[in-house]
């Protein structure tokens, strides 16, 4: 803290207040996962969060393969990301399809999810979720991979910390809960788009995310709108 000019910081933040306000923590986390995806050159990334006193649930995934990774772990209650959360440490698998620690995982995974790494996302030292990345080919994770992921998880922690300071804790929790709850809506919207436009799940999900990002909206809100239109067509 000795390297910061507090007066310059406050004066700069005052100027920044003339920019539009942020779009909410969930949208920011989606952007943060997009950045990690492009930054490290991995095949995909995702973020899982734990509901208070409950299991991990996925919040953000960059593509359908990443969703299969998170869905499979949620269904089985085990996997590298679940272990990273429970043990509060980095957990890696060079190939989840042959890893004896999670023998049932492969059956539920997209075939192109092979190497997986998860690190805990913490708040005040306590894990609140995990940052997960995967490779579509077997891959030996090295120490530099893990250190970079830990550093990135630290950036996400700062983002969460700032959001907690900016909003009532309950409002922040509501936003996260909304996103977690609306995963169901997203899944239904994907199913609808697949049927209507003859798309694969991956194409439908990617299209939905892109449209949401381009219009600076939450994927969940757009998915709800898509389902509303679908209901209108049936009337």
């Amino acid at each position, binding site marked *: *803290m000795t*390297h*910061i*000019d*507090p007066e*310059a*910081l*406050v*004066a*700069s*933040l*005052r*100027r*920044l*207040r003339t*920019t*539009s*306000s*942020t779009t909410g923590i969930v949208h*920011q986390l989606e*952007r*943060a996962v997009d*950045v990690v995806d*492009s*930054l490290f*050159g991995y095949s995909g990334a995702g973020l899982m969060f734990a509901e208070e006193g409950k299991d991990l649930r996925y919040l953000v995934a960059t593509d359908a393969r990443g969703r299969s990774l998170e869905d499979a772990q949620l269904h089985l209650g085990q996997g590298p990301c679940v272990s990273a959360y429970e043990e509060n440490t980095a957990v890696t698998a060079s190939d989840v399809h042959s890893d004896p620690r999670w023998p049932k995982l492969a059956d539920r995974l997209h075939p192109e999810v092979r190497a997986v790494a998860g690190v805990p996302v913490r708040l005040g030292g306590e894990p609140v979720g995990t940052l997960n990345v995967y490779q579509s080919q077997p891959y030996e994770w090295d120490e*530099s991979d893990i*250190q*970079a992921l830990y*550093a*990135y998880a*630290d*950036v996400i922690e*700062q*983002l969460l*910390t*700032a*959001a907690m*300071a*900016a*909003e009532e804790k309950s409002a922040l929790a509501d936003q996260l809960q909304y996103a977690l709850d609306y995963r169901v809506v997203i899944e239904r919207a994907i199913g609808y788009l697949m049927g209507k436009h003859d798309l694969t799940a991956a194409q439908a999900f990617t299209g939905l995310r892109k449209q949401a990002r381009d219009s600076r909206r939450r994927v969940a809100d757009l998915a709800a709108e898509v389902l509303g239109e679908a209901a209108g067509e049936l009337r």
Partner: protein
Amino acid sequence: MGEGFERGLVDRTLGALADVLGTDGATLTLFDDRDRPRAVAGSDDDGRRLELAQERTGSGPAVETLAHGADMAVDDLHAARPLGFPGLAAQVSEIHAVLSVPLRADDRLIGTLSFYDRTSHEWQPAKVRAGERLGELMVMVLQVLAHKSSTSGKS
């Protein structure tokens, strides 16, 4: 939560961003509410000196980025002009390679984030792009801090 909280958060974010990019440190220069560039933070003493020296002399990669709104990758500050900034290097002899990326909010230039190393090296295009993306995260954190209610009352 007051200024101490904001300082701590910016400090930790800056350190984490440098770690993600694998550089020795990072610095932050932002325009203040009178549109003056201000050396806000450095992740260590050398970084702080680098920013303050640029603020004082009006010369250096961060200054160039603020002037042109574009990346500025300097492989070695100690190289002769136009490749380096020998006058600046004389004041921060430990620092060699510097990458400055513009920070934007609402398409408006708000400052620059710089990464530095104590050895000279070429900045690969992938690393420059990564620096730009990390800049987006810095802006996210700053925007949340700027709009948080406890700051809004301060003059």
